[in-house]
């Protein structure tokens, strides 16, 4: 009996302290790749998120927000440690961020074991959109294949007859080729897989030249894209035929490419020239604060913060009722900088996908210009495999 009383007291203490914490602040765990060669992406995610938070007066849903930041170093095991720390030590209410899909796949288990609410601001791997979907997970960016799919549709619309495909030889590279082919049914005259993080593409570019395609589609994220585009320009291969790309020219690589990349085409869900109030406000504030044109990664994280804010506003800043927060997140009742967007049954967005061209903006800086919108209201190809309703 004595023991039970003690237990009861301890439990009451915990409940009370738990409640006071919930009333005082909402605790958010932010994990992304913040070091190593790919750190520019994670840094943009962080900057975008913090910019939105600053505009919201440091509050999410009217409650003071406390952000815990961890670097996953692009290592799945380090990411898992970060998430465990968030859950066990920091007692966070929601986790956001995540840059790369391989880290995301490792995080899925500890997140779902803890029934943690999760908002991804970049990674969107296929398994989590399909069979392994989770009601607590929301993906505020796009499913990985979407950017390839829109370029595939564009190639179909332009009725290119000889398309040459290139990507690094790893899972994402293969997914991006498969995504392109899902919407482009025309003839492919060459398919080339290069080593991951290969610096020099002279040999492949010579092969490409000899094949004389009428369009090229590539997926070269980060530094690989900078290398590839520079070398294509010097070989006199840009402008000869359209260069279609996914994750190759974006806000993180354009400052290193500048005029070299003019004319390259890219598929994305948003571009800095979008003409809606949220997007304009975001781009202006971001440029003012960080002195650079925001990348899509910053935009995704900015949207994530506003999505979380909208959900917590509905629950009065409380996260104790998970089902209520979940329903509020699912409603996506916020003004997204991409315009219309809603969540599908698997927690992935249903949204328009656009084609952009690298061009100079009105200020004379090299940026992305919207060309067309080949896929409207696109839902990912895996949603039907997800058992959630």
């Amino acid at each position, binding site marked *: 009996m004595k023991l039970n009383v003690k237990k009861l007291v301890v439990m009451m203490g915990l409940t009370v302290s738990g409640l006071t914490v919930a009333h005082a602040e909402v605790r958010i765990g932010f994990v992304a790749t913040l*070091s*190593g*060669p790919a*750190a*520019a992406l994670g*840094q943009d995610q962080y900057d975008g998120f913090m910019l939105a938070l600053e505009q919201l007066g440091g509050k999410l849903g009217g409650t003071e927000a406390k952000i815990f930041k961890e670097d996953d170093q692009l290592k799945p095991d380090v990411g898992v440690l970060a998430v465990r720390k968030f859950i066990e030590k920091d007692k966070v209410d929601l986790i956001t961020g995540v840059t790369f899909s391989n880290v995301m796949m490792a995080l899925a288990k500890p997140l779902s074991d803890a029934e943690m609410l999760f908002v991804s601001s970049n990674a969107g791997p296929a398994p989590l959109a399909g069979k392994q979907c989770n009601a607590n997970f929301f993906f505020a960016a796009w499913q990985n294949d979407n950017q390839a799919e829109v370029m595939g549709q564009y190639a179909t619309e332009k009725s290119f007859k000889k398309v040459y495909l290139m990507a690094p*030889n790893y899972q994402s590279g293969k997914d991006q080729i498969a995504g392109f082919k899902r919407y482009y049914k025309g003839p492919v005259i060459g*398919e*080339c*897989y*290069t*080593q991951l*993080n290969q*610096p*020099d593409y*002279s*040999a*492949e570019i*010579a*092969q490409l*030249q*000899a094949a004389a395609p009428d369009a090229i589609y590539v997926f070269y994220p*980060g*530094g*690989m*894209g*900078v*290398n590839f585009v*520079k*070398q294509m320009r*010097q*070989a*006199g*291969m840009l402008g000869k035929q359209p260069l279609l790309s996914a994750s190759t020219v974006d806000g*993180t*690589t354009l*400052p*290193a*490419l*500048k*005029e*070299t990349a003019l004319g390259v085409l890219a598929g994305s869900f948003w571009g800095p020239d979008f003409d809606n109030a949220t997007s304009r406000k975001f781009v202006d504030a971001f440029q003012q604060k960080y002195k650079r044109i925001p990348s899509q990664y910053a935009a995704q994280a900015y949207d994530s913060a506003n999505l979380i804010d909208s959900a917590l506003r509905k629950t009065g800043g409380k996260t104790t009722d998970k089902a209520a927060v979940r329903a509020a997140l699912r409603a996506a009742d916020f003004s997204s900088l991409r315009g219309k967007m809603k969540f599908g049954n698997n927690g992935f967005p249903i949204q328009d996908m656009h084609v952009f061209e690298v061009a100079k903006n009105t200020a004379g800086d090299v940026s992305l210009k919207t060309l067309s919108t080949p896929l409207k209201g696109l839902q990912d190809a895996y949603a039907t495999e997800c058992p959630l309703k």
Partner: protein
Amino acid sequence: MTLNLLLTQVLNGVQFGILLFLMAAGLTLVFGIMSFINLAHGSLYMLGAYFAAVAYGWTGSFWLAMAAAFFGLFALGALADALGLSILHRRDHLDQVLATFGIVLFCNELVRVVWGNAPLFMDAPPLLADSIEVLGLNYPAYRFAIIGAGLVVALGLYLLIERTRIGMLIRAGASNRSMVSALGVNIGWINRFVFALGAALAGLAGAMVGPILSIQPGMGEPILILTLVVIVIGGIGSIRGAFLGALVVGVVDTLGRVLMPSLLNQLFSPSVANAAGPAMASIGVYLLMIIVLAFKPDGLFPVRQR
């Protein structure tokens, strides 16, 4: 594959080899003459690229950027040697590997702190920005310039080592340190000069790839590994070996990447060939290294014993 395309690919291989040579020359000198394993050679290459990009950003001049990288890294190499690296010369190789690996991590982080995560911008000079038509295919003029510059450096190094007084002292120091210092030559200064020269060549290589590659933290590591392969294949301590070894590695690596997938395509289905081709191509260079080590453990072109 047509003959023209094959010749273009050999040209690509030679150009890549020349770039590897600039890295390997410094590494092999430092290793062969000072018996100092410097894993941070890749970091010197990265710093060369950053120095060049910063100088390019300030002045807009490609040639000043090259000079900034070369002389900046020469000074940095001499300074690093004076400030403490020289202590490592007397330690065993494991200590050197550990210490210089630490420097690699330090430099990557330093570059990230100073210049940020995003890659920097640098362009080729207008004179070399376009491509030249060779054998029916466009070949970047800038890559011809790299080949030319590499050959000039190779010749200069040869003359320096074989035909000058300082070159004689360097060679003498490599054979018998204590005898050279007994004759009244300051061997510490000779070593410092060799190390600084190696750093400057790595910096020049980094600056020259600026217009081709992404200038970003950690860019030195992929090339460092191939450079180590070059000096092992070529024979440690030999400039001639580094030159020929670099050309062999450059051509084997490039042709492997091109020929392996098309060869596999004729033997297997496209899906198998696409999966196995890049993997097989990337091991070509290492296979070559294993064969060379098995039959000629001193490398293909070892230093002649006098």
